[in-house]
């Protein structure tokens, strides 16, 4: 029996995976430079780095998708050459991709066996595969139904299927690429329990992320990458978030947002008795009322799926209100068109799903930056688009908002997540506005970009803009808000001042527990 907890491992043993002096040069770019890495059996190694730090390139080399320009890779002490992922899989390396590689219309069983099918008399032996899946899912406490169809499963379960896919192929080394980016807090806890089980059973894990708290929580060892190089290692028992953030970014990072007291002015957004229906036809908002004043940030907290998404959609004109009233700057905007709300209402919207609502992946950065005003001069004259004005506008915003892109004509979809979000923020923040609606403004992006966007939001408040911030991250709500509204089952259960709010108190409200004030 192995002792539980891989931290007591014997470091003198041969590492299961070793990367020696690996350099990867793409035309014009050095993606990895002289990287060394070793991974022991039963260890969780966290690979920390900002977007573009070279984490993905390194993992793609280990998984056989790229070939190193220099250097070598050793598995169990033996030098190996991997031409394709197939070779990596044979060597016991499995990868859980950030964007799940699962066929939505197929069952769990079909997805897991795809490419490595079990066959009896030339026909697929689904029963044997399902039995194997049940056995694996029991051994590693990865609960799934082999007959479930992927598209009906929650994201957390799909991720378990991805992990099972690797285990089915007898992976001993698991690479988890940003596994927490798409998960809810509860699902993240579940994933961590699975990772611990895997470690106890002797599997080795490389955990790629840029979330500092997670790293300190789960990793046995931390390696930080910046600009393609290893800039240091850290021991999670001693390191602090502050130190790690500085290593990642290469300068001091302020994790807490600096902001002065708010000076609320007149009411800008006035919502009264709002009711709406969800996509599933169930009541999503059951009479929501609140106000946001100029010069303050009102944060909406709550466990996801309690009506936050629908609230933002109704206010921005993307979903119909069944009852109630919305006023922006004194004008009635209930069920007004999105353009009337953005244009007439002088409001901006940073949507929670940037790919669906925030940007057009196949458009250039320049075009994405004028999506909300391309029809206005100077970008349009009569029926024609003014390319020069659009380009000039784009250059100015890319500079001001630090959007890192090879050119303003690059497709928006090819930027990193953080830069895409900065692009959306640049567009939404650069018009004269009086109301800003920001939904999950920092979801899935790196520390440097988060810091930047947070500062921009506070700057907008100080200019006298009314800000409605919706976030699933309680830390973000606590850091930015002046008042905090907690949503529970389609209602605002309470609104508290930031000064009176505690993490515990908000947590109780999020769970629907409301204490009447003691008289």
């Amino acid at each position: 029996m192995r002792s539980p907890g891989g931290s007591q491992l014997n470091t003198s043993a041969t590492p299961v995976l070793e990367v020696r002096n690996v350099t990867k040069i793409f035309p014009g770019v050095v993606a990895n430079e002289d990287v060394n890495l070793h991974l022991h059996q039963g260890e969780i190694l966290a690979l920390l780095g900002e977007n573009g730090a070279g984490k993905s390139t390194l993992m793609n080399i280990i998984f056989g998708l790229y070939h190193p320009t220099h250097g070598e890779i050793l598995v169990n002490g033996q030098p190996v050459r991997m031409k394709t992922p197939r070779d990596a899989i044979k060597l016991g390396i499995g990868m859980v991709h950030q964007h799940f590689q699962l066929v939505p219309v197929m069952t769990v069983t079909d997805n897991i066996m795809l490419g490595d099918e079990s066959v009896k008399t030339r026909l697929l032996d689904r029963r044997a595969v399902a039995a194997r899946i049940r056995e694996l899912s029991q051994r590693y406490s990865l609960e799934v139904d082999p007959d479930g169809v992927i598209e009906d499963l929650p994201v957390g379960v799909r991720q378990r299927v991805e992990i099972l896919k690797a285990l089915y192929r007898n992976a001993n080394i698991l690479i988890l690429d940003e596994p927490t980016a798409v998960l809810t807090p509860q699902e993240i806890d579940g994933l961590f329990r699975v990772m611990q089980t895997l470690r106890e059973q002797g599997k080795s894990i490389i955990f790629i992320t840029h979330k500092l708290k997670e790293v300190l929580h789960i990793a046995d060892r931390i390696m930080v990458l910046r600009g393609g190089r290893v800039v240091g290692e850290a021991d999670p028992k001693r390191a602090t978030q502050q130190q790690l953030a500085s290593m990642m970014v290469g300068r001091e990072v302020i994790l807490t947002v600096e902001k002065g007291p708010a000076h609320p002015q007149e009411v800008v957004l006035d919502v009264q008795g709002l009711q709406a229906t969800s996509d599933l036809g169930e009541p999503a908002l059951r009479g929501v009322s609140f106000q946001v004043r100029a010069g303050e940030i009102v944060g909406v907290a709550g466990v996801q799926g309690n009506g936050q998404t629908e609230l933002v959609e109704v206010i921005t004109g993307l979903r119909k209100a069944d009852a109630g009233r919305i006023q922006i700057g004194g004008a009635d905007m209930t069920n007004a068109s999105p353009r009337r709300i953005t244009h007439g209402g002088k409001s901006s919207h940073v949507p929670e799903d940037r790919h669906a609502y925030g940007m057009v992946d196949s458009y250039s950065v320049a075009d994405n930056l004028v999506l909300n005003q391309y029809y206005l001069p100077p970008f349009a004259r009569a029926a024609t688009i003014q390319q020069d004005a659009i380009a000039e506008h784009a250059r100015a915003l890319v500079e001001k908002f630090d959007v890192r892109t090879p050119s303003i004509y690059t497709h928006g979809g090819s930027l990193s997540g953080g830069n895409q979000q900065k692009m959306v923020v640049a567009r939404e923040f650069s018009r004269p506005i009086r109301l800003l609606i920001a939904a999950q403004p920092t979801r899935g992006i790196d520390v440097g970009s988060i810091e930047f966007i947070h500062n921009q939001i506070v700057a907008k408040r100080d200019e006298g803009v009314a800000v409605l911030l919706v976030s699933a991250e309680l830390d973000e709500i606590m850091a930015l808000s002046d008042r905090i509204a907690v949503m529970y089952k389609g209602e605002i259960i309470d609104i508290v001042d930031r000064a009176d709010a505690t993490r515990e108190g908000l947590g109780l409200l999020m769970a629907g527990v409301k204490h009447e004030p003691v008289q």
Partner: protein
Amino acid sequence: MALLVNSTALGENTWLRVFFGVSALNFTLRASVPLILGAMSGILCERTGIINIGIEGMMLAGAFAAFVAKTSTNHWPLMNSLLFGVAIALAVGGAMGWLHALFSIRYRMDQIISGTVLIILAAGISAYLFDRNAVAEGKFGAIPLPGLSQIPVLGEVLFTNPPLTYATLVLVVVIHIALFYTKWGLRSRACGEHPRAADTVGINVNRFRYINTIIGGMLAGLAGGFLVLEAVGQFQEGMTAGRGFISLAAMIFGNWMPFGAMGAAMLFGYTQALQNELLLAGVTTVPRQFVSMIPYVVTIIAVSGFVGRVRPPAAEGKVYETEGGSE
């Protein structure tokens, strides 16, 4: 109903005979075979992610090739000559499929345009090369299956057919099993739904697309061969007359499932039979042009009514570039 009409006194009623008579049912099957084959062709291509709008062209090319093969071997024994025609129809259909795959995969041409090119190509070449004096001598005749053909009504409709009709019905079952119960089918469908997922587990997406598009072309070619070698016995310019497109409609109506598509093809075939029977029986005073419209009207209604409810393979029509190349 059909049993009652054909074996009891109900058969006295002209209307019932028009709708359910053996002749109507036989005609239905005959009209359905090319549609079924065309729809199978579409299913094979689209399930792996290649839109095949060129079924019409592949069919016409197959028909013309079968005709040329048959006329140039008229002096051979009839069965040899006919089978040679079938082989050539398959080969030319397969070549058309290969061309479509080449355009779509290697040259990344828009697949709708590539399909359209094939239609125009087949129409142009077959019209240009068609020798109007050539005559194909003989065609496939019905082979009653021993025993089964003795069953009343059913035997006459299902078990007294020429060979390509039997082959088609068997093919539907084979394709269904192959798609959903074999390694090849699972991998093919993965390529059509989520090629990247297939690639990351070591499946060569584009190779699957090439192979399945070629097989799909062969099936469409066989449909053309059926028209010349089994149904009509001769070739006429543009003789496919939109059957490729109706096949496509049958494929959609059948939700990209072999049996569903066969059902849809039979429905469309039945409307053609109905049109025929109505005109022959002379039971209606409606102008014949309106009666002739029935198959097309039913096709339009079926497809427009169902198109929102069916679900095409998610990645169809999209070029797949391998990970190493695109990043």
